[in-house]
């Protein structure tokens, strides 16, 4: 991976240190001091808890500083723009990447810069490169993401042995590639609306010489594939980026795409009924530019899948890192869940 310079590394390392304090110390402190806070108390400027005010401030601004500011991920890529663009536009083997000029990103997506990534994941030719860097740079403690997908695939393996996998909202391929490793006999297809992310995904797959993978530009709600094309339709961190209407359309589309006996399995976030947990989670959505986090939590995803025709629906807590679910872990974490449905 291209080095962006020592200043960038030092700055991101500073932010990581701050973030570790925030998740490992400030969050538990807030829970002890003000564990009775609930979703109605999200507005920090009206809060009587100074700890919450700083907690909220830091949650937003450490993330802002990560992407923006003098050594933020976005500006630090500028000096290398031409080099990255050339790398992304290199010729690729046939069928590895297929783009569709008619597929425009939905308004609900372009309205907000998700995760405070300026321009969002579609807004700039370097958005995929920047998103990849962002997913690596700042997760306290564990090398969260690379292990995460392996752990998810282990859950998938307990449910089915897929041969034809569709990864909805595949981003820059971070969720898609691990399927090719854990299910080497399967054909894996990733779709996304973001051209810069898809290009990144395809170029890295080509560099790593992965054969059983293909990427395609498409919305999850309406894909170009014929009915019963897949035996697993999956997504990772997609649902919380969509309004409920789009989630319902996506579930319906997944049902259409699956052969009988096929599974839809999603990895996403759902806070449990504890008011403090909801307060933290909804506040995170608000502060991190993720407006559909709360609507996803408030809709009944199980019923939505059932209405589409799915059976054996399960929504299970997911342990994203070793011991993450242990009572001894008092750090902030996402309320990860795996959602499963089977097409009869």
């Amino acid at each position: 991976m291209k080095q962006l310079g020592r200043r960038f590394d030092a700055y991101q390392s500073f932010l990581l240190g701050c973030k570790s304090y925030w998740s490992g110390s400030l969050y538990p402190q807030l829970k002890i001091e003000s564990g009775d806070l609930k979703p109605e108390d999200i507005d920090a400027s009206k809060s009587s808890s100074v700890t919450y005010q700083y907690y909220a401030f830091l949650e937003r601004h450490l993330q802002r500083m990560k992407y923006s500011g003098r050594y933020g991920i976005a500006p630090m890529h500028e000096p290398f723009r031409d080099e990255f663009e050339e790398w992304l536009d290199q010729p690729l083997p046939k069928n590895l990447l297929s783009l569709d000029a008619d597929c425009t990103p939905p308004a609900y997506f372009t309205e907000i810069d998700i995760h405070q990534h300026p321009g969002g994941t579609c807004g700039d030719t370097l958005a995929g490169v920047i998103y990849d860097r962002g997913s690596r740079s700042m997760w306290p403690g564990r090398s969260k993401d690379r292990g995460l997908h392996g752990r998810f695939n282990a859950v998938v393996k307990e449910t089915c042995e897929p041969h034809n996998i569709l990864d909805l909202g595949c981003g820059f391929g971070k969720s898609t590639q691990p399927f090719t490793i854990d299910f080497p006999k399967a054909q894996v297809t990733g779709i996304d609306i973001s051209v810069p992310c898809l290009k990144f995904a395809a170029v890295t797959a080509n560099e790593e010489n992965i054969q059983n993978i293909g990427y395609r530009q498409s919305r999850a709600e309406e894909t170009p594939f014929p009915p019963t094309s897949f035996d697993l339709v999956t997504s990772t961190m997609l649902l919380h980026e969509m309004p409920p209407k789009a989630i319902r359309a996506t579930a319906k589309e997944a049902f259409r795409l699956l052969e009988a006996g096929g599974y839809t399995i999603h990895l996403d976030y759902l806070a449990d009924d504890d008011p403090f947990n909801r307060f933290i989670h909804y506040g995170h959505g608000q502060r991190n530019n993720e407006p559909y986090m709360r609507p996803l939590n408030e809709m009944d995803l199980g019923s939505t899948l059932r209405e589409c025709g799915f059976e054996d629906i399960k929504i299970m807590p997911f342990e994203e890192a070793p011991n993450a679910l242990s009572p001894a872990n008092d750090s902030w974490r996402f309320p990860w869940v795996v959602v499963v449905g089977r097409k009869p």
Partner: protein
Amino acid sequence: MDERPEQVFFEDGALDRAVGMIMTLAAELYVTRDRLTVLERTLAAKGLLDLAELDDYQPDPESLETDAADRDAFTAALMQNFSGKQSAKGLT
């Protein structure tokens, strides 16, 4: 770019902006500290710097004077902010 007002987390939004500046300054300080460490290590590795010499450094009388003047100018500019006084005759 379409500009939207930043979220406010303190009763007084002035505090949000001031804490933002503190965080930016702290980040810049850390980057500079890191730079200095790398500089020291690089010079030491090339045999151009003896780190003990840095720690044991004693300025000569002339340097002492220069350093004191520099310190006074730095702290005066910083502390002037607390005086609540104008720097040029102006409206009150």
